[in-house]
């Protein structure tokens, strides 16, 4: 009961705080409108699909070669134009010169893709398609290894009895600018929960109320749980409001599986709360607020909250920074789920966020138990 009471108090104080309302609700909704409107042309789906030109160097053989040929034929129906690599060509240079949007090297052990920053959305889609194909091929290969007789049927479409149900190749739609920013900015505010979490304990100390809380017949664990729960509820409610507003007013597309979308966002909120709390204990001062604020802004920037990053070289500085951003993880997972029907990354992201959050929460709880007072 004390936990609920403390959580409710946290919610009350948060919603009476104008800064919370501005940063968690007004700011993302206005930014969504501004960026979504200003960059609408950059997300034009027709232009993107008409001009996705992929240079392919197929070095595969046997089943892999056959599989890719089938995939290629399917994709050409959906507006992708594949050109075979010719000896003497430099694929990466061709992409750099904008002769092609992407350059793919297909081998028996995998597919390498060189993307273009010129059309980030098109490159994203190519990457998504190839990932989906690779997953399907791997699944079929596994079936073939177990029972060679079934290998042929594994590649067949699901209605005719195949074992692999393909959800992603029949692309119904691509994200418009408002769709993209609805997802990206909602993920961003989910991560912003770290900033309010960093303040959870410090604000009680600053207001002097920590003394009263500790002097009351309430266990420290109850105070901790109440505060975490309150912060989660506030941030999740803000996320829900932003999703609803973007859906109803901006007509942003959130896909057909809203519960799974919410689960991903909840995992980001849980991670952000844990991160903010752990850092506030670790740094033991108001400096934690500034540091978290900086970290969250960098994560937003490199995570594609303000502009789509598209395909980035993994080993480049941008690639490393992007790979460290929880916003990027969640963004890619949600876009793959919403537009490609591929949930693989969704579960990976939820697992990663939940795992990190559990570690951070355990560390915070330990530091709290060792501290005198709150």
């Amino acid at each position, binding site marked *: 009961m*004390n936990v609920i*009471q403390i959580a409710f108090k946290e919610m*009350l104080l948060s919603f*009476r705080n104008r800064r919370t309302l501005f940063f968690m609700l007004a700011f993302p909704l206005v930014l969504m409108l501004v960026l979504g409107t200003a960059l609408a042309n950059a997300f034009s789906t027709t232009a993107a699909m008409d001009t996705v030109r992929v240079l392919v160097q197929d070095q595969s053989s046997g089943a892999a070669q056959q599989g890719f040929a089938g995939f290629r034929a399917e994709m050409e129906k959906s507006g992708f134009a594949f050109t075979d690599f010719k000896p003497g060509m430099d694929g990466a240079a061709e992409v750099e010169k904008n002769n092609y949007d992407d350059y793919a090297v297909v081998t028996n052990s995998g597919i390498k893709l060189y993307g273009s920053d010129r059309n980030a959305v098109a490159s994203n889609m190519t990457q998504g398609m190839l990932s989906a194909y690779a997953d399907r091929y791997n699944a079929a290969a596994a079936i073939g290894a177990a029972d060679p007789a079934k290998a042929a049927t594994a590649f067949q479409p699901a209605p005719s009895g195949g074992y692999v149900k393909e959800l992603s190749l029949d692309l119904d739609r691509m994200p418009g600018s408002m769709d993209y920013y609805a997802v990206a900015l909602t993920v961003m505010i989910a991560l912003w929960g770290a900033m309010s979490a960093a303040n959870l304990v410090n604000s009680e100390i600053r207001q*002097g109320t920590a*003394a009263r809380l*500790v*002097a*009351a017949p*309430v266990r420290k664990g109850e105070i901790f749980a109440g505060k975490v729960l309150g912060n989660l509820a506030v941030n999740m409610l803000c996320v829900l409001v932003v999703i609803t507003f973007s859906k109803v007013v901006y007509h942003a597309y959130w896909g057909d599986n809203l519960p799974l979308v919410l689960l991903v966002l909840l995992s980001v909120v849980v991670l952000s709360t844990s991160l903010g709390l752990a850092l506030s204990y670790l740094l033991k001062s108001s400096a934690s607020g500034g540091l978290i604020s900086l970290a969250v802004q960098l994560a937003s920037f490199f995570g594609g909250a303000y502009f789509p990053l598209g395909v980035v070289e993994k080993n480049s500085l941008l690639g490393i920074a992007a790979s460290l951003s929880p916003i990027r993880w969640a963004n890619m997972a949600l876009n793959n789920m919403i537009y490609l029907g591929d949930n693989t990354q969704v579960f990976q992201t939820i697992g990663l966020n939940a795992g990190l959050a559990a570690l951070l929460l355990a560390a915070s709880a330990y530091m709290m138990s060792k501290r005198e007072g709150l």
Partner: protein
Amino acid sequence: MNVLEIQGLTKKFGNFVAVDNMTLNVKEGEIFGFLGSNGAGKSTTINMISSLLQPSAGEIRILGKDSRKHSRHAKTNLGIVPQDLAIYDDMTAYENVAFFAGLYGLRGKLLKERTEEALEFVGLGDRAKSRPSTFSGGMKRRLNIACAIAHKPSLIIMDEPTVGIDPQSRNYILESVKKLNESGCTVIYTSHYMEEVEEICSRVAIVDHGKIIADGTKEQLKAIITDVKDLSIELKPGSAYSLQSISEIPGVRAVNEKEGRLSIQSDAAVDNLNRILKSLMDGGAEVKALQEEEPNLETVFLTLTGRSLRDQ
């Protein structure tokens, strides 16, 4: 019956001993004054009683039970009025009191009744729906008290509850403390204002360097210094004199000057008044008034610690 028993209480911060083997009892129904200069160990002791700090050694018993082993029992019977305001500015007065009372297990109708009662008690019944940000300093102090009393504790610890407020609010708070005590509540009261302690406390302990150096009723404490006389000499503005030469007169124990008035403590057995006056007049000072004052707690504190409490 002892509401609070402290036995061998010690708190160390590294090598610094903030509270040194303190032993103290507070009886039911007392208003117990806890006096000490800044850094004397007074707040550290209060923080240990309130569970904000863990003792390095010793035992605290509240209503006969060890406060660490029976933490919930101890906390339920305790009300804390911290020196710094401990209220939420973005919650109304009612919400503040109800939130803290709720942590003590009050629910529903009882919670509502006790919250309203506490607000009425401190004179904020008509401001229940207002936020503290709209309150004066005195009103915030009163709300700070209301948050500590709604659950009707047996022992209330008030740490400097009248700091920085107007005389009217101070009187209101002092009257409230008396009323709380009359209703059966034991109070531990700390203050820099000696006259407050003198007015409301039935027993006083003086803390210095983490130890209790005197403990007793006001009369018992004043009796400690029967061998001391306290002279108050008012000088004409611009008078010149040497504190050093006065302090060197035989029998003089301490000399303090504040706003043209000299306060001199001297051995009662030594007749040195003429020498004090001569020293002043030799320096060119002109005496406007002179009186020998009755000993008070300020004198006791000064005698025992060598420092004035209010000048800390």
